[in-house]
């Protein structure tokens, strides 16, 4: 895989930076929007978060080695979300889980329903109830991996937790979903 900046020293030229941006960053914007939507539970906040994330990534391209751009961007996304939260809530401690309890102005919208936490589309009623039965920690992992298709490692990057924690939360979330849907007759 080609390095963005083989010398790893000195600034990138504008053309090289734009080429790297187009190759590594732009294709990941839809995924970043999905993850940001899960984290912020608001379309507007998600767009703000992704804009800030992508701009930071553009500025940081000279130091990026070209490997695993999605993981790199998800880490920037997580740090950016944390910074945005501190900017509006200076009393907030640096604990990622508190992002699930957003307050104004960034993160003003709470995930009132799983429907909102995932998208504005209509969600199957049974699925919605099953997802609603999950706690936030389990819901975010389930949505990132099973709805949005992130790998365990990508989900871990986005949430700042170990892969093993992703796996255990995912396992419990799926088991609860399965039992809930089975009880409602959705699963045969």
């Amino acid at each position: 895989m080609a390095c963005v900046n083989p010398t790893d020293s000195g600034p990138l030229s504008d053309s090289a930076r734009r080429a790297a941006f187009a190759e590594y960053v732009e294709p990941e914007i839809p995924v970043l929007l999905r993850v940001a939507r899960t984290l912020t539970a608001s379309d507007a906040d998600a767009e703000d978060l992704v804009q800030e994330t992508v701009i930071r990534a553009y500025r940081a391209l000279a130091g990026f080695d070209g490997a695993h751009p999605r993981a790199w961007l998800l880490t920037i996304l997580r740090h950016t979300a944390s910074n945005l939260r501190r900017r509006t809530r200076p009393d907030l401690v640096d604990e990622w889980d508190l992002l699930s309890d957003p307050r104004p102005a960034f993160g003003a919208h709470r995930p009132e329903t799983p429907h909102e936490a995932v998208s504005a589309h209509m969600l199957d009623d049974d699925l919605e109830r099953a997802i609603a039965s999950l706690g936030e920690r389990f819901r975010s992992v389930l949505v990132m991996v099973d709805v949005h298709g992130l790998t365990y490692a990508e989900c871990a990057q986005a949430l700042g937790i170990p892969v093993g924690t992703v796996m255990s939360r995912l396992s419990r979330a799926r088991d609860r979903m399965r039992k809930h849907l089975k009880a409602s007759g959705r699963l045969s």
Partner: protein
Amino acid sequence: MTSVGQMLECRRTARQLQQFLDRDPSAPLSTKDRERVQAHLDVCERCSGLAREYEELHRSLRQFGEEAGPAPEALDRVKAAVERAIASE
């Protein structure tokens, strides 16, 4: 008829079933473990039924995910805002 050995094998399979189904590159099962889980699923009605339920759940959630991508307008807004920011630097 369920022997103690079969029960233990069911429990062992249950612990690895989601890794087996996911095939996630972050946490792959060894070839030996994959073969063992597959062999057990081939003969155990209860565990193969559980696997089918997880697969059905996964399909439902993934199908929803495919329908729930970001709106094209959202993508356009983000790209336009980033372009403006980059151009001003």
